[in-house]
């Protein structure tokens, strides 16, 4: 399963719940304000890093760049463009867009 999260982890609990629900081997793509969850040195960084042992985490680079957060992504988070977004959707059997 592919999970997408589009809200800041500092505004909503979507990322936290998604990390709890994502099963081993699944993928999480952070988009829009969700990309704030992909950054180093934040209050949620450790939680995200821990989750990366079991799930693949991606972030949409255009959204990171738009917010001036280039170079701040956690090492190991894979940055994708829109084409990569499409590939992720196509590669997974189902998608859950957390609100």
């Amino acid at each position: 399963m592919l999970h997408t999260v589009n809200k800041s982890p500092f505004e909503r609990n979507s990322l936290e719940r998604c990390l709890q629900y994502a099963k081993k081997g699944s993928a999480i793509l952070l988009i829009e304000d969700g990309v704030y969850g992909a950054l180093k040195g934040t209050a949620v960084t450790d939680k995200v890093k821990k989750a990366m042992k079991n799930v693949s985490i991606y972030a949409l680079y255009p959204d990171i760049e738009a917010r001036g957060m280039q170079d701040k992504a956690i090492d190991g988070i894979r940055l994708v463009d829109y084409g990569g977004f499409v590939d992720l959707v196509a590669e997974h059997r189902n998608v859950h867009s957390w609100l």
Partner: protein
Amino acid sequence: MSETTGGVEMDEDVSGVIKKFLYVNRKAPYGTIYALESLEVVLIAAAFDQDVSLVFLDDGVYQLAKGQHTKTIDVKNFSPTYRALEGYDIEKLYVEKESLEARGLTAEDLIVPVTLLPAAEMAELMDGQDIVLSF
């Protein structure tokens, strides 16, 4: 025109595929429009004879609270609709145990019978779906 079989075949094609639809409800009922919209979409899907399940997580559990009276806020109380779902063959309602407990509620406080599932089992249920729609 009973010798015409074309129409019959078309009917079979249309009704052939049944997918597993899961509706994830995570918002309280009246602060935003999500809960009501979810219910509308659930009823539409039911008309297409799909395999429908509803789950309630986080503040979504408040949607099922008994005793909702909305006259004084001048909006429609849609909570009785959850009781009508059975009539549309929607009988799979799941509530996350942790969310309910965190809000000091029990299954007794809910307007319909539900299956309580811990988050880990809920994750399994989610994984097994064809389509997941989040509200």
